[in-house]
């Protein structure tokens, strides 16, 4: 995080900065449904849309943490629902390894990086998930590792 920004942040009340990866077919659609249904959640996260959760390279997550994200959430179709047949299964397997590295090698609390499945009809779940994740990160406080 840039020094100027950090300074500015220290002055005001701290709010977490969260990054969420959504797959185009299920979880992004779930986020859309949260919108259409007007389910409210905290505004501390930004979504990056990818076609499949299988696209989320571990370096995306590491880069976000390095640049100052307080939490990263990867979302995709439920297992079995993947638009690309099995992309999310690879996400799941890859995430397991990544999560271990984050906890064991980087010493970051595992709750800060999560993988969740959200379907296109789970607008409520998407909103609840973001609320819960935001609260969790708020409890953990700002990430200070790098």
């Amino acid at each position, binding site marked *: 995080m840039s020094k100027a920004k950090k300074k500015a942040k220290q002055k005001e009340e701290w709010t977490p900065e969260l990054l969420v990866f959504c797959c185009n077919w299920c979880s992004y659609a779930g986020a859309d449904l949260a919108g259409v249904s007007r389910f409210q959640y905290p505004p501390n996260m930004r979504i990056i849309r990818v076609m499949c959760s299988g696209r989320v390279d571990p370096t995306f997550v590491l880069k976000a943490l390095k640049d100052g994200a307080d939490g990263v959430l990867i979302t995709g179709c439920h297992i079995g629902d993947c638009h690309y047949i099995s992309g999310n299964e*690879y996400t799941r397997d890859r995430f397991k390894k990544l999560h271990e590295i984050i906890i064991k090698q980087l010493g970051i609390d595992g709750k800060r990086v999560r993988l969740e499945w959200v379907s296109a*009809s789970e607008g409520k779940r998407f909103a609840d998930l973001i609320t819960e994740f935001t609260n969790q990160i708020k409890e953990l406080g700002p990430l200070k590792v790098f």
Partner: protein
Amino acid sequence: MEGSVVVIGGGIAGIQTSLDLTELGFKVYLVERNPSIGGRMAQLDKTFPTNDCSLCILAPKMVEVFRNPNIELMTYHEVKKVEGKPGDFTVTVLKKPRYIDETKCKGCGDCAAKCPKIEVPNVFDMNLGKRKSIYIPFPQAVPPIYVIDPEICLKLTKGVCGVCEKVCQAEAIDYEQKPQEIKLTVGAIVAATGFDMPAEELTSRWGYQYENVVSALEYERILCASGPFDGRVLRPSDQEEPEKIAFIQCAGSRDLHENIPYCSSVCCMYTAKEAIITKEHSENSNCYVFRHDIRAYGKNFYEFTQRAQKDYGVQYFQTKVSTVVEDHETKDLMIHYEDLKTGKFNDFHANLVVLATPLVPSKGTEELAQVLGVEVDKYHFFKEKSFFNKCLSSKDGMFLCGFCQGPKDIPETVADASGVASQVANLLNSVKYTEIKEKVFEVPEMEVKITDEPRIGVLVCHCGINIGKYVDVSGVVEYVEKLPYVVHCEANLYSCSPDSQARIKEVIQEKNLNRFIVASCTPRTHEALFQETCQEAGLNKYLFEMVNIRDQCSWVHMGDNEGATAKAKDLIRMAVAKARLLKPLTEASLDITPTALIIGGGVTGMTAALNIANQGFKAYKVEKEDKLGGNLNNLNVLYPIQEDAAILLNVIQDKVKKHKNIEIFLKSQIKDVKGFIGNYNVSIAMNKKSQGLKIGTIIVATGAQELKPNGDFQYNKKNKNIITQLELEQKLKEKDKSWLDNIKRVTTILCVDARQKEGITYCSNVCCGVSIKNVSILKELRPDLEIVVLYRDIQMAKKEFEEYYRERRKDAIFLRYDLDQIPTISKKGGKSEKYDIKVFDTNLQDEIEFETDLIILSTPMIPADNLDELAKMLKVPLDKNGFFLEAHVKLRPLDFATDGIFLAGCAQWPKNIQDSISQANGAAGRASRFLSAKTIKTSGLIAEVNPERCIGCGKCESVCPYNAIEIKEASMEFEDVSLVLKKSFINSALCKGCGTCAATCPNGAISVKHYDFDQIFAMIETYLLD
């Protein structure tokens, strides 16, 4: 002849038919009487047996229909009159007034939010939810256009109110709209009008009149996360979580008193699904299924019902339910039933009851039949022309698709849809592509080099007040204007309106922009529109980026304008950072060899070949035996039409042999397959010779075979009178029936080695039907013959079969046995073939022992031999039972994940001839889409390999679900030397751009265009660091 088609009904049947028709070169008018397409499938929570989210898989298809330039979507329209003949029909369609100008409505919902009229039950939620008098049926409705209910609207009924007109900033409200008649001239008509579930028509003994007794479709809405209770399992009377939920099967189906003699075919499966989802949603609930037979005959179906019991603790009772009565105080229900395993009458106390009520043709089917001039059958479904082609109506040029012809599940409907499309193509072959329009862009695409300085334009949408009320749009514009490389930024009221498209084009050209961003709603519905606008202005469509500041800002942070505005700024800044790095992408065009290879010469393969050949394409047929016909050669009489199998075989075989476009290779096998869609090189081995063929697409129709139960049930060489059902079939085919002379009693045993706990766990669908057919044939030959049938459940789903079974039940004694106590056979002493059978009859709860002279074993169908080799050559997967595995069990039953290869018939799963023929026509349709188009366009959004970084490890190849990656040797130049190294190559024709390879690559050598590392890193960086 007209090159266009009217499709009536916008459910999954109509949607799939329309999409396939356009790909075969026809214009489609999709007429739907409701305000949105989606049909019943849109109402489902999940789909069996994978528990896929129904809307997740359907919505992309709905949007595809909406965006397709060759589908004219006519929702809220009804067909009123049809004249003419095949090839030239005039169809009069009534456009019902929405009281909304469709060209102006943006679907924002401001009107409904302000509409004061008391809410009425929402039909989409099966009347469990509420809606206003101005409404959209469900949030994902297509088209996303509102409609006013004239029955309750205060303005239309009493002339007061008019609030919606005042709040609609798009000025879309039009109270003066009148019904309008439209005349269409088309070549063919497809009816795909689906089903209804009118639980209210049941007799009162089922208890539907009580609040806490719901139909399965109502329960589907209760379970749905976007349903009336947000997916919480609550009972309607008090919105409390029920503890004991009872599912009653056959609540009216297979019931002459309810006037529904047929089996609705899907209830056993959706009940298992609903019970499983219930357990997932509500841990404390307990589910009880009051079943009749379990009819779970599709792929992985029976196992699914077993999993519901084993893994989810759903309890199944084999019962006959007599009444459901309410306790007036608690609103709980008492189910009075007979336990068929004990013969006792019991009462069961439940908090909620879900009825699997009969599925009947949708309301208005008979009126439509009159308009079309087609016949309906005795069950009021549309009547098919012949049993073996259920997609033809009684009138030429009019086709039937899906549930309107008879009960069927979604994959069967989708197969039907592709089959209908191909048969329309057969009829209208000479006018393919006469009414299809290809979008032509008049402004030539401007060249944008990577070195050119980015000139970004941004449009920020107010969306009426939907964004503007919560996001400070002018503040956002001011902020965005100052971002690097942003040359122009402006706000507008509705970005999606036609005048905005004109404005986008104008700005791109005036300001010489080479990137464009729209910050408005969701790219899932609107990206294609803006991309097209950019293309019209000469900008490559991949230089467009979209930001969703409505669904992700204004609508979800309504109480926090500051937060919503800050978020909108960040999201746009992230898009600008990405847009800077966007590259123009090309969509390559690949030629398709106009030939098809059909592997397998049975009824499925022959039907597919004929269909393709009739469309003017060359079809090569490869059959390993020395004659065509496959299993049909072994059959005697076909049920339920009781016609000699040879008649069907000869008719179809004759056509195939005489067709000039079909070349047949007998005693031949596939030796090698190289290439990909449109460009396969196939080598065929026959009699020591081999021949190479250039092939465009491949259909796998390798069939299945009967299992020989070696050793089980005393099936061995010593016991001459213990034979399989197929062996009986062959005996019955023989002219000489003297083998029957000394036989007094025949016993048929069903589910031999099928539906087991281990080994073959599935139901193979056709054995019950074949057995019952042979019972009646034996009885006709020898009326004095005694016949006993030992069964577990009788699988006679579909409209014809229940009655077929009922009529023949008198021909035999039916004894029910359980898997835990299978019948035993012992041979009697002496020379003659006589056996003793012991069986524990679960209905009588008693052991029965009797003598029999002939035992027929009904064994399941198993895959053909040596499919492994073929699967490897084609690079397509087999499922755990050894059948071929389709791309998606629900919506792509005939495709493989690999484009260009299709499957049909028993190669996919055991099925009867009717379904095999439907799939054959379907697979032919899927395949001929590519042949008709002559070329295919690849997407720009695909993966690319940086050979410098690729280490040839092959991980990408192993994870690609589409076989789009191949590790090949490539010569790499290093200063002085040149080395041959293994490198990854991506086939742009097969890549779908998911990016799994990119994330798997250990060396960062693969990137996905439009979502590459630099672009995503830039977004992350600007969000967190700027």
